[in-house]
C-alpha cells in the first residue's frame, strides 16, 4: 500500500497531480482513493490531497503518515516534512523551497520544478515535473498509465496540452 500526500498553493495543480496518480493506480487494477482537504476559503492558503494506492481494499482515505509527500511550496514543506513515514520519500519543489530536509531517515528529493517548467515554456506544468520525479523515485505506477490518465483527468479542452505535460513528466523523471 502506498500513502501519498500532495501539497502546495491553490492553483499549483496539486489536486490534479493527486488525481493522476489515483487514476493510474485504478488503471493498473489497484484499489485507490483520493481525498482533498477542504477549507472555507475560496482562494489563498495552501491545499493538499491524500492518495492511497493499494493491493487490497483502501481503509481510511485520509493519509496521516505518508510514504511519499510531494510538496510544492514552503508552508507545505514545513507542515508535511515531519509526517513522512520513516524510510519514506519527500519530493519537493526546490525552486520555491530553498531548504534542505532535516530528516535523515527519509529520502528527500529536490526538484527545481518551476525552473524546469519555465524551460519547457509553461510554468503551469511544474506539477507534472514533480509527478515525473515521483514515478522515477517510487515506480508506483507506469508512465503509460499516467499517459492514459491524462486524457481522463484533463478536460478535453486541455487535451492539446498533453504532449507538453508528457514532456514535463519526462523531464521530471530524468532529473536527479
Amino acid at each position, binding site marked *: 500500500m502506498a500513502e501519498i500526500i500532495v501539497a502546495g498553493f491553490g492553483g499549483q495543480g496539486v489536486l490534479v497531480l493527486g488525481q493522476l496518480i489515483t487514476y493510474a493506480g485504478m488503471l493498473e487494477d489497484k484499489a485507490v482513493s483520493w481525498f482533498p482537504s477542504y477549507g472555507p476559503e475560496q482562494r*489563498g*492558503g495552501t491545499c493538499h490531497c491524500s492518495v492511497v494506492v493499494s493491493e487490497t481494499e483502501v481503509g481510511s482515505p485520509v493519509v496521516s503518515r505518508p510514504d511519499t509527500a510531494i510538496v510544492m511550496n514552503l*508552508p507545505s514543506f514545513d507542515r508535511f516534512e515531519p509526517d513522512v513515514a520513516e524510510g519514506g520519500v519527500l519530493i519537493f519543489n526546490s525552486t520555491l523551497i530553498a531548504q534542505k530536509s532535516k530528516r535523515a531517515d527519509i529520502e528527500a528529493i529536490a526538484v527545481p520544478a518551476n525552473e524546469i517548467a519555465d524551460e519547457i515554456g509553461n510554468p503551469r506544468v511544474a506539477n507534472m515535473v514533480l509527478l515525473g520525479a515521483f514515478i522515477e523515485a517510487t515506480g508506483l505506477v507506469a508512465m503509460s498509465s499516467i499517459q492514459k490518465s491524462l486524457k481522463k483527468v484533463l478536460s478535453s479542452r486541455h487535451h492539446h496540452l498533453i504532449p507538453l505535460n508528457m514532456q514535463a513528466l519526462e523531464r521530471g523523471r530524468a532529473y536527479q
Partner: protein
Amino acid sequence: MPKGQVIIDSERCKECSLCLTVCPHDVLRISKTINANGYHPVEAALPENCTGCTLCAVICPDLVLTIKRLVPERT
C-alpha cells in the same frame, strides 16, 4: 517633497491590484517580493508622486494602506 505618503503593510496585501487601478498618479505597483501568504505585495514605485488623496486606501479591501498628507483636506 511629496504631498502625500502611502504606508504599506505588505504582509496583509493580497495582490488584488485594485489600488493600482485607482491611483491617479501611478504611485503603486506590484512588487517582485513575496509575502508569507505567497502574494506579491504592492509597493510604492513612484512615492514622490503621491498626493495623499486616499483613493487607493478607500478601495483596498484588506486594510493594507495607511495614508498621510501634508495639508489635510476633506475627501
